[in-house]
């Protein structure tokens, strides 16, 4: 099928970007969205042009490195699907597709569709862990955790750190990302004792990185490939306020 593309091109973080138009005549329905971009890039390179730079690695929906806005929606039209798992059968012959990077003040563009998401790493660095050194661990079964709690912790731990929640939020808030880690560790006895310190550090870091505030539009959960629940945010707010009072 024939696909028209309008792709955001930007040489580096300092340059001004803009849309550039391309047309592909030989797109197969079974192609993944990224394989469609690969096809375009081979054509560009053969003409001596710079290919469209985009982030990707595992191409099976788990590493969290891919992610672009497709027709204004993070990761495109399918629910709970990363960009690499989206296939061209979701589009029709003759369609025009707009492709842009995830946009947020805390995600500067590196080139074209590639962005810098190290701000998310910084949030984890500020406290998203259990403070245990190698060698200190007790025998695993001395920390019993009911199946229900373990499964709930997993639901929060499933976040792949792609940043779609930030890109989908009108305030560019990282509340869903941050709260998912806070909730996972708060639910588990191993992480619980550090909650007070952790939640304050991580929320402060989130603000320092330039992410906006959460105003409960819940757009983040809608576009999240892992369907991380906004209830995590409610828990983060509760824990944050509790810590502020108790500290």
């Amino acid at each position: 099928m024939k696909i028209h593309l309008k792709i955001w091109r930007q040489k580096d973080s300092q340059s001004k970007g803009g849309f550039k138009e391309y047309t592909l005549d030989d797109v197969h329905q079974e192609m993944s969205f990224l394989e469609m971009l690969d096809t375009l890039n081979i054509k560009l390179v053969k003409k001596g042009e710079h290919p469209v730079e985009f982030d990707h690695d595992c191409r099976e929906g788990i590493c969290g490195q891919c992610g672009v806005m497709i027709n204004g929606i993070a990761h495109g039209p399918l629910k709970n699907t990363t960009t690499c798992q989206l296939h061209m059968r979701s589009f029709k012959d003759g369609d025009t597709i707009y492709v842009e990077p995830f946009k947020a003040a805390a995600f500067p563009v590196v080139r074209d569709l590639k962005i810098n998401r190290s701000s998310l790493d910084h949030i984890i660095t500020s406290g998203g862990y259990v403070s245990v050194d190698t060698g200190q661990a007790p025998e695993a079964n001395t920390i019993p955790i009911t199946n229900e709690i373990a499964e709930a912790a997993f639901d929060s731990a499933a976040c792949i750190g792609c940043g779609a929640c930030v890109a989908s939020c009108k305030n560019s808030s990282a509340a869903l990302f941050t709260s998912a880690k806070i909730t996972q560790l708060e639910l588990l006895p191993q992480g619980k004792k550090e909650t007070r310190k952790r939640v304050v550090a991580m929320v402060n870091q989130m603000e320092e990185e330039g992410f906006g505030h959460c105003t409960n539009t819940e757009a983040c959960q809608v576009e999240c490939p892992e369907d991380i629940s906004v209830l995590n945010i409610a828990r983060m707010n509760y824990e944050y306020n509790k810590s502020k009072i108790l500290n």
Partner: protein
Amino acid sequence: MKNSLNTKIPEGPLSEKWNTYKKKAKLVSPNNRKKLEVIVVGTGLAGASAAASLAEMGYNVKSFCFQDSPRRAHSVAAQGGVNAAKNYKNDGDSVFRMFYDTLKGGDFRSREANTYRLAECSANLIDQATAQGVPFAREYSGYLRNRSFGGVQVSRTFYARGQTGQQLLLGSYQALMRQVNTGKVSLYARHEMLDLVLIDGKAKGIIARNLDTGNVERHGAHAVVLATGGFGKIYYLSTLAMGCNVSAIWRAHKKGAFMANPSWTQIHPTCLPQSGEYQSKLTLMSESLRNDGRIWVPKDKNETRKANDIPEEERDYYLERKYPAFGNLAPRDIASRSAKEQIDEGKGVGELKNAVYLDFSRALKEYGKDVIVERYGNLFSMYKKITDIDAYLEPMKISPAAHFSMGGLWVDYELMTTIPGLFAIGEANFSDHGANRLGANSLLQACVDGYFVLPYTLQNFLADEIKNPKTDINHPEFDKAEEAVKKQMEGFLATKGNKTAEEFHKVLGSELYDKCGLSRSKEGLEKAIENIRELRKEFKENLIVPGDASEVNSELEKAGRVADYMEIAELMCVDALQREESCGAHFRIEYQTEEGEAKRDDANFCYSSAWEWNKDPSTPILNKENLTFETVTPSVRSYK
């Protein structure tokens, strides 16, 4: 041919070797640790766990990865689980049994002492990961749950839904970031190692390129650890991430580190088949599907009907027919090879006739859809997402794909390569899995190397480095290495041909898959070597890389990786050609039993091949590490 490798295996009985080593290993006092610097390349399970553990001890660590965050490393994609000899099930498991299963699974081609240590340290890993908050599956009582996995008779696999790798990696990533917070780890994401720097014969640093700016940087240290994973991506179509590569270990090899058993690649039987020329990746489906799915092809190779229209008597359930005892649960190498045989005979299914059916109709009838949804629901929906086919209504189509590198840099018992001060851990080394890796042992090896082995063995090395000052990155060896790296990149940019690095990679990959993949022959390998040399020549003359080296340039990154693949591809074929036996994943068609099974030759090939670089990709030198089995007697691996 030389036999001069010092494995440094400690004396004493197998079960005491690691304790003996730890008792005698040299220590570095906490005061001195802060004077020492270590470079760790790679942030997967091996790299992140090593970097975090070393920083916790007080060493200064520089951690590098080419991804945009350490959390993206490909350990993240492992699905099934991680083995540990906890014997929580009281079903007869023990360190020795786990060791024996791993050794047998590897077809008696691994080093006894290393494999034993892997099993010995396995239980510690479950404790460590649990303490970090890894949400392993639990019984309703709250205790940890186990399941069984291929090739063993006990339940020793711990898992976190179908995302065990992701959860373990997040545990070690978080441990790493905690050390970034203390200032003991400096993180260099989006940095690719392009060369190793040796001073007076010792590994003293690396040359790395900042992929965001194009800057070529020098980094010095007292020791260098490579945790850069496997290189199955050389086949182009594989289960690996797009960025996985051989460059770090290959460039270290060219500086003097021996490369062991490079041709031993595990080809995973249950992956989604290729659907067209444009395809970039073969997604792996957990092999747990083989518990209830039945594998078959049509008996008639001219079959044109849809799967559901082919009557029972015209189907060949070839694994059940050939291996009645294990049936559809035959080990990975056997299942993959049998699929290829059927496909090669023209009985493959699907548009490109490159797949076999994995059929759940009997299980659906027997247990009902609800049970199948509960067991495999996420896999069925993943299948639907990628292929748009509902596998509850018709059989899945699967095919084998390159997956895990059993080979890698040769290391001694301390995980040190033949270059003093250069260590290799995780999939980047060769030591624990022999000629075939058992399921759920890869996450384990990466973690055990990084958390529990390297912190002892590296310290033993560093104890003698205390007197040495910080490495001077203005040393002429750094000048030389940086210049060579820049010259190579300029060469790629100046070629201005008309074939992209990826196009070369695809040709190389299909050549290797065909002739140095599931089955190999003298004739095929000799032909492959010829073709690879030809292709390497064309690569030099006809590559196109746009842009320049001082910007974000993914084509330039790929060119460097493919250039290295072009060289190691030949060594893989030479390695496979030299080994005139069949063992594990290495199947030479000339060496098989009458029933078509692998025929090992313990009298002549009971060794690991450690190849030494000798100026040119076509003239490697073979060194042998003879494998001696003090505790077990190698037996014939039978799954009939």
